[in-house]
């Protein structure tokens, strides 16, 4: 009874309010210029809350470049004014959800209208673009917290597609990616790059050197694969071997070095001696080959004591 009475009063008040006006006042924009035609229906209770865009850079209305709803979604006349003969309200001209029927190129075009310069210059030829990755596959526009732009949550966004890296980053030897200290975008430019592997620098080595510059040399004694490509020996995403090595020593070293002298020695956890380079523990335990060849990335020692070409001093 009480509910019915409340409803009746509300209806009466509403009717009174409505009759007091000759015509309804125009709706006010809530966040962006011209958004009233959208926010008359869409609010914070939608599956994708729309008002939260106000928390973002896209909600900075003092910036004259800030887009409106229709800048991205199109004028969407059919959506706003449902045709009389339509059984369902047509979708906006451009939608960005995972199951959107808007072609990815058209979705991305909305973003590229403004975001084609700077670090996105090479987007169009990137592996992401050519494999139909939409900007909205990674970025969330209608939220104050875009996961891919937060170092603590970014890896999870990338791992949605990069499953192998998701597993590798959990191995015993790894970068501090799970801790949000070295994340995907520290090495990769997801928006495309001129160099290989969409890296932030033009080569693998130059990217590694941004943090591991001590390895670049040049040295008096250089180790050829070190100069050519760090990834010949290392997997930066994680391995079970110390120092992100792709394989355990001595097997990794024996994948290149001739079997003359001690280099073809048989790995073993017994036999030999710690100071010996023969088959057995000297080439297998502790730092393995590095027990003697301690400066494996190169040495700048100009003198010779015991074949400095082999990085022992």
């Amino acid at each position, binding site marked *: 009874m009480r509910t019915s009475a409340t409803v009746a*009063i*509300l209806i009466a*008040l509403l009717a009174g309010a409505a009759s007091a006006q000759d015509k309804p006042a125009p709706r006010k924009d*809530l966040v962006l210029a011209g958004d009233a035609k959208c926010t008359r229906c869409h609010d*914070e*209770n939608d599956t994708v809350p729309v008002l939260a*865009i106000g*928390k973002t850079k896209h*909600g900075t*209305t*003092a*910036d004259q470049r800030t887009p409106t709803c229709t800048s991205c979604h199109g004028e969407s006349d059919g959506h706003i004014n449902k045709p009389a003969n339509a059984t369902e309200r047509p979708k906006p001209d451009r939608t960005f959800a995972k*199951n959107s029927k808007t072609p990815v190129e058209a979705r991305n075009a909305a973003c590229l209208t403004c975001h*084609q*310069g*700077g670090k996105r210059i*090479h987007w*169009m*030829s990137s592996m992401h673009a*050519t494999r139909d990755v939409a900007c909205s596959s990674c970025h969330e526009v209608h939220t104050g917290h875009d996961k891919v732009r937060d170092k603590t949550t970014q890896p999870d966004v990338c791992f949605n597609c990069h*499953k*192998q890296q998701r*597993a*590798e980053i959990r*191995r*015993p030897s790894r970068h*501090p990616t799970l801790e949000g200290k*070295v994340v995907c975008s520290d090495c990769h430019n997801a928006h495309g790059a*001129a160099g290989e592997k969409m890296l932030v620098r033009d*080569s693998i080595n130059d990217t590694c050197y*941004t943090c591991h510059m001590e390895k*670049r*040399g*040049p040295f008096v*004694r250089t180790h050829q694969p070190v100069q*050519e490509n760090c990834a*010949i020996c290392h997997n930066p995403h994680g391995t*079970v071997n110390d120092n992100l090595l792709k394989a*355990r020593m001595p097997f990794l070293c024996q994948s*290149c070095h*001739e079997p003359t002298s001690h280099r073809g*020695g*048989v790995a073993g*956890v017994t036999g030999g001696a*710690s*100071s010996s380079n023969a*088959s*057995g523990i000297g080439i297998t*335990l*502790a*730092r393995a080959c590095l027990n003697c060849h301690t*400066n494996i990335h190169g040495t*700048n*020692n*100009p003198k*010779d004591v015991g*074949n*400095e*070409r082999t990085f022992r*001093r």
Partner: protein
Amino acid sequence: MSARSGGKFRLTAMAAAMLAVGAAWADERDDEIARLKRPDSEVSVGAGYVSDDNTRFGQYNGMTNEGLYLLFDARIRQRDDATGKWTNITGRNLGLESRELRFDQSKQGDWGYFIDFSQTPRYSPYTALTRLTGYDSTTQTVNGAATPTQVELKTERKALSAGVDKWVSSRWDVRLGTRYEEKTGRRLFGRTGSDFLVDPIDYRTQLYEASVGYTGEKGQFTGGYYGTNFVNNKNHIDGLGGTGPTYSPIALPPASQSHQAHLAGGYNFTPTTRGTYKLAYTHQTQDDTFIDVSTTGRSNLGGVVDTKFGQLGLTARPTSGLSVVADLRKENRDDKTPVVDYFPITVTGTATGVNEPRTIHSTVGKLEASYLLPAAFRLIGGYDYDQRRRNTSDVHVVSYRETTTENTLRAELRRSLSETVNGSIGYAHSKRGGSEWQTTLTTTATGSNLLQPLHLADRERDKVRATVGWTPTEKVDLQARAEYSKDKYGGRTLGLQDGTGQFYSLDGAYRIAESWQILGWFSREDTRANLLDCASAAGTNNGEITACPNTTASPIWTAHLRNVGTAIGIGLKGKPTGQLELAADFQLSNDRGEFRNGPTPVGVTSVPDTKYNRSVTKLTATYAMQKNTGLKLQYIHDRFSTNDWTWDTWTYSDGTRILPNSQQKVDFIAASVYYNF
């Protein structure tokens, strides 16, 4: 109504209510809308307790000791709506060694600047028990202490970054940035297999960037300068005692610097055709004073590496169904370091006193076409070209070839089968070959030429991949991926012979109810490589396996290398009430290494398998006590175990042992209070 409480705001309903109760509610509505579009800020403070000393749980966050830790995070976002000026302060892990603090201000579309501090510890899983003294210095004495002490092996990076940017006009911007990083600490080191030493790390790394950018409707470019400077405050170790002065001093990394000028851009020839380019020139030098007197009289290497980089790309969509990508890049890394004979060949085993500059030229190209077929199929065909050219030294102890060239053909068929199912299948075939093999050379004789280095060997690679995504309902999302690759190596007799790689993954997510979701994933990776080698091959040979003695003491041997990794993740999150959020997360990583090498000489036991297990269970509860204030509780159970035998029986000459800390079981409980504003 706070974001944490999950209260949602329905404007339409509220609008009706406002009419009913009057204008007073209009103010409340405006306040609520203002809150909903105002940038969020949050500060949280609390404490966490770690149950046990460890080296894995706290490896990168610093919580390696049992005890209490301060948890302090802040994220402050403020915007002046009238001017568009943002002020942000972000602090993370401020009570831990992994702290980060950033302050930035910007007037959007006009100017901005930031200053950022980041600290990153890395605790080695290993601890040294040693009598070495002076381990933080450049003079270290093996066997220097009467009794062994426990030495923590840890490095730490502290980085300070800053940058400014200015939009000069609506199309032109200028950016300046720099990063200064200190890396200090201790790392495992040693010499001759007998002496334990510590690498006393004390690096300074500086990066400088300056760029000008232009963003037009058709053309965009950015050009500028990128400079680096590396300094090592401890560039050698004098190792006293132990195996003696023969292997002392030991050189540590020298200082070096580089300067790069670069220009990159893109141009939209038509709405469907775009070209891109990049040009860069880098001049890198290394002239750090030698740690020891050079018999040549030189005081430094005089190292110079000049690198020229160029890239050209074209993407086009000539018809609505066809798109084409072409890309070519070339990098010439010319090592112009003076070649000097640093010492006469008087020591046994020394092949040359001449330094060996490394010049590497690479040419990489890609041509790809994507064509939309009937029934929503898309066919992608591609060709990749990769050529590397390297110089060769007069003396080299590894089989060598100056040029390797790899050609790859690939095809992929993709289809959005329906609104709920999509998938792809792809195949790629690569073939790598190269120039003539060059036999190893010493100054006196032609050497060995038996083994094909892994990055120079002939290689044929076949790779297939299939993916399926299925979203049968709005509540269910499933993904599956399978990959298989097969390598076959050749060129010489020994070395890697063949290998395979397999990877499978399954992902699933299910929305149980409006506010509850469960997700899980599983992946398995299995990589194998077969290595053929021999002990004590003849120093001079013609590449035939007959150069191997193939005796019991020096056998021809094989190793069947294998890594099997299984990883699982399960997560559950939900909101049982408007005030309470719960999350549970379990992750398991299980890896096994196999080696299966042999036959072995008498007394040598082949290498056993290694296993690594890590599981992390995380429970989180967040309770909104008031509109803007709440409590967050967290519990983590972290276990690690391995049977890795690397250090188990190893003892250095002075009795130094490395403790591998093979088992870990840590419980972590934390409580913090947050405040939103």
